[in-house]
C-alpha cells in the first residue's frame, strides 16, 4: 500500500502569484480513486468522531471507490451543508485526518481532497440539482449572519420544514467565505453555488440587513419569528495599540481582505480602490495573516514580510497555507514583534520591531514570547496589515436586552446553545471568538437541533 497521499495538482508558485486563480486544482477521477483506495474502511471510524459535523467519511470514500460520485456527495451533504467549501478550507490535519488509521504508518488518507473532489464533481456534472424541499411545518426562524454558522443552521432547519430567513449585513451572502477567504483558496463562485442550493431548499436571504440597526432582534420576534439564531461572527478587528497604528497605509486584515475579496479591488472592472504598495508587512501567524500576505503578493508587492511574535511551530495557520506562503516567497520574520509604525509625508515608511524569545509555557501550554531588550530594528515597508485576530461584533448584544456576554464580548450560551434570553440561540465565532469555518458549521448544526426541540416543546 502507498504510504503517501496522492499529491494535489496545483499551479506553480511563479504562475499563481500573477493572478487570483485557485491554487489547488483538485483531483482528477483517477487520482480520487487512487486516494480513495488508500482508505481501509476501518470499523471504529475514528475520523467521523473527529469531524465537527460527523461526515460519514468511510461511506463516502467507499462510493468514490465505486465511481458513484453522486452518492458520495449526497452522503457528505446529509450532514454537511457546504461540502465544496469544507473540502477546501477545513484544517483536516487537526481533525478527521489526525485520527486516520492510515496515519499511524505514513500519511493519512486525503479526506479533505476527496471531499472536495466529490463536491466539485457534483457541482460540475449534475445540472438539475435536486434539493429535497421539506414539507413546511408552519414555523418561522430567523438566522442572523450568512457565514458558515448561519448557513449550516439555516440548511438544517429548512430540511426540517422551517421557514428560514437569513439576514445578512453586507450585500452578498456568505460572510467570511466571501469577504475573508481569498478567491485563490476558495473561489467565490463555489460559495455562491452552495448558497443557491440552500435557496432551492427554501431558505430566504435578505441582504443589506444590519440586525441591531435596520431591525432589532425584538422586532424579529414581533414579526412572527419564533426563534432567532445569532451567527454574526467575529468581525471586529483587533489592533496592537502601538504608536503609529492609525496612520494612512495601516490596514486591519478585515479591511485589506474585504477590499480585495468582496469588493474585488484586484479587478480593473471594479471601482474599489486599493493602493499599490511595494513592501508590505503583515502582522500575525494565522490563516488570515497568510491570506493577507498572499493577496499582497498578488497585488504586485515586491517584498511581503510576515511578522509573528512566536516561532513557526506555534503558528495557528494550517500547514498547507504556511507552505504555500513560503513557496510564494513571503519572507517570514518569526520571533519578531512590531512596537511602532513610522510614517512620513507620503505614508508608512517603516515598522520598528523587537526580537522575541520564548519563555515559560502559559496556562494553555503555549510558550509566551518575551521581548529581547535592546533588540530594536526597522523593516522598511510602505504598508502594514494587522492580522492578529478579531472579536465578536457588538451590534447585536448592544441592541438586545437580556443577552449576556463574557469579558471578551463573546455571547454566553448554555449546552443547547441558547443565550441568556429565551428563544435566542447563538453559535460560531460570535460565541467562541475567532475560530474555524467547520467549528462554526458544527455549532450552527447543533443550534438547529436545539431550535427544533425548543419550538416543538412550546406546542
Amino acid at each position, binding site marked *: 500500500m502507498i504510504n503517501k497521499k496522492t499529491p494535489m495538482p496545483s499551479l506553480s508558485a511563479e504562475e499563481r502569484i500573477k493572478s487570483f486563480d485557485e491554487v489547488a486544482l483538485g483531483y482528477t477521477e483517477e487520482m480520487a480513486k487512487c486516494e480513495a483506495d488508500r482508505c481501509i474502511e476501518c470499523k471504529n471510524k475514528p475520523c467521523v468522531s473527529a469531524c465537527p459535523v460527523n461526515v460519514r467519511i468511510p461511506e463516502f470514500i467507499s462510493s468514490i471507490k465505486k465511481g458513484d460520485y453522486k452518492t458520495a456527495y449526497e452522503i457528505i451533504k446529509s450532514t454537511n451543508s457546504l461540502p465544496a467549501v469544507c473540502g477546501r478550507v477545513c484544517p483536516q490535519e487537526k481533525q478527521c485526518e489526525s485520527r486516520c488509521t492510515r496515519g499511524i504508518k505514513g500519511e493519512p488518507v486525503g479526506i479533505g481532497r476527496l471531499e472536495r473532489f466529490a463536491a466539485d464533481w457534483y457541482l460540475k456534472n449534475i445540472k438539475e440539482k435536486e434539493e429535497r424541499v421539506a414539507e413546511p411545518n408552519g414555523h418561522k426562524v430567523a438566522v442572523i449572519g450568512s457565514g458558515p454558522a448561519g448557513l449550516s443552521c439555516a440548511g438544517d432547519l429548512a430540511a426540517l420544514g422551517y421557514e428560514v430567513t437569513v439576514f445578512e*449585513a453586507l450585500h452578498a451572502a456568505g460572510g467570511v467565505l466571501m469577504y475573508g477567504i481569498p478567491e485563490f483558496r476558495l473561489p467565490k463562485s463555489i460559495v455562491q453555488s452552495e448558497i443557491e442550493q440552500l435557496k432551492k431548499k427554501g431558505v430566504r436571504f435578505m441582504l443589506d440587513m444590519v440586525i441591531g440597526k*435596520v431591525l432589532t432582534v425584538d422586532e424579529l420576534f414581533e414579526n412572527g419569528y419564533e426563534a432567532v439564531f445569532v451567527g454574526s461572527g467575529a468581525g471586529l478587528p483587533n489592533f496592537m495599540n502601538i504608536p503609529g497604528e*492609525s496612520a494612512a497605509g495601516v490596514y486591519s486584515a*478585515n*479591511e485589506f481582505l474585504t477590499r480585495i475579496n468582496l469588493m474585488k479591488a484586484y479587478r480593473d472592472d471594479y471601482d474599489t480602490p486599493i493602493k499599490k504598495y511595494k513592501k508590505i508587512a503583515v502582522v500575525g501567524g494565522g490563516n488570515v495573516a497568510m491570506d493577507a500576505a498572499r493577496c499582497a503578493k498578488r497585488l504586485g508587492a515586491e517584498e511581503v514580510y510576515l511578522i509573528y511574535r512566536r516561532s513557526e511551530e506555534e503558528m495557528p495557520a494550517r500547514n498547507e497555507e504556511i507552505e504555500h506562503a513560503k513557496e510564494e516567497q513571503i519572507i517570514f520574520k518569526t520571533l519578531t514583534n512590531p512596537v511602532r509604525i513610522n510614517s512620513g509625508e507620503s505614508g508608512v515608511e517603516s515598522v520598528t520591531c523587537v526580537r522575541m524569545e520564548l519563555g515559560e509555557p502559559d496556562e494553555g501550554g503555549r510558550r509566551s514570547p518575551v521581548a529581547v531588550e535592546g533588540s530594536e530594528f526597522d523593516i522598511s515597508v510602505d504598508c502594514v496589515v494587522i492580522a492578529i485576530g478579531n472579536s465578536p*461584533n*457588538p*451590534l447585536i448584544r448592544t441592541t438586545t436586552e437580556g443577552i449576556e456576554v463574557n469579558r471578551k464580548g463573546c455571547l454566553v450560551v448554555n449546552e443547547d446553545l441558547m443565550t441568556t434570553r429565551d428563544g435566542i440561540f447563538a453559535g460560531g465565532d460570535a460565541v467562541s471568538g475567532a475560530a474555524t469555518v467547520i467549528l462554526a458549521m458544527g455549532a450552527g448544526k447543533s443550534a438547529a437541533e436545539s431550535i427544533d426541540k425548543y419550538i416543538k416543546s412550546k406546542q
Partner: protein
Amino acid sequence: MFKIIEKRRLNDQMTLMSIDAPFVAKKAKAGQFIIIRVNETGERIPLTVADYDREKGSVTIIYQKVGKTTGLLDTLEVGDSVLDFVGPLGRASELEGVKNAAVIGGGAGCAIAYPQAKALFNSGATVDMIAGFRNKEIVILEDEMRAVSTRLFVMTDDGSNGNNGFVTDALRKQIESGAKYDLVVAIGPLPMMKAVCDLTKQYGIKTVISLNPIMIDGTGMCGGCRVTVDGKTRFACVDGPDFDGHLVDFDEIIARNKMYRSEEADALHRHQCMMEGMSE
C-alpha cells in the same frame, strides 16, 4: 434595488436625491448615515441621511460629485434604482436637553448640519445656523436652513453675498456679542471643523463634529474608519459618526483621508486624457 423618487440639483456640484427605502426611513434619525452601492462593480460609500419621510418610506441624501461613485450616481435619474442602500448606520446625534445651539455647516457639510438643526429646532431649542460657502453661486438649502433656525447667517469666503468671512468669524462675533450656546455642532471640511473646535475650546463650549471617513461595511468590521478620540481608538461607523470635537485627533484623520487622493487624481487624469483624445 432601491428606486430614486426625486432628484434635484442644488448647485453645479451638489445634488439631492430621495430614495425609496422604507426599512431605512422607519428607523433613521439625525446624525445617522447610509451606505450606498450603485451597481455590481461599484464601491460602497457612506452618505449622511439628510432627511427622511417615515410615511412615504423615503430617505433623502445629498452628494457632491467628487469621485467615480458620486459621478456614477449622478448619471441616474428619477425612476432608476441603486443596487444597495444600507442603514441607518451609526449612532443618532444626542441632542436632548439642548436649549441654545449654534449649528455650523461648511459647504457640502450643510447637508449634514441641516438635519441636526432641524432636530434641535423641532425639539424647541433656539438655533443659530451659520453656513459657509466659497461664493454665493454655490449656496445650497438656504430656504430649508432658514425654516429650521432662529437666525441664519450665510457667509461667503469672497463676500459675494454681502457677508464676507469664514464661519468662525461669524461664530466668534455671536459669542462676543453675548450669545450663550450650550452646544455647537460643526460639520464640514476637516480644517473648518478643527478651526471651530479651536475657537469654542477657548470659550469652553461643548462642540460636536461629524466624521465621514474611509469605510467599507459601516458595521465595525473593517476598522478603516478608526479615529483617535481622547487618546483611544474609536470606529466612526459604530461609535460615531458624531464625536466631541475637543477630543478628536484631527491631524491624524486629515492624513488618513489623503490616502486615496493620488489614485483618484490618476483615475480622473486618465479619464480626462481619454476625453481629450490624448495618449500617454
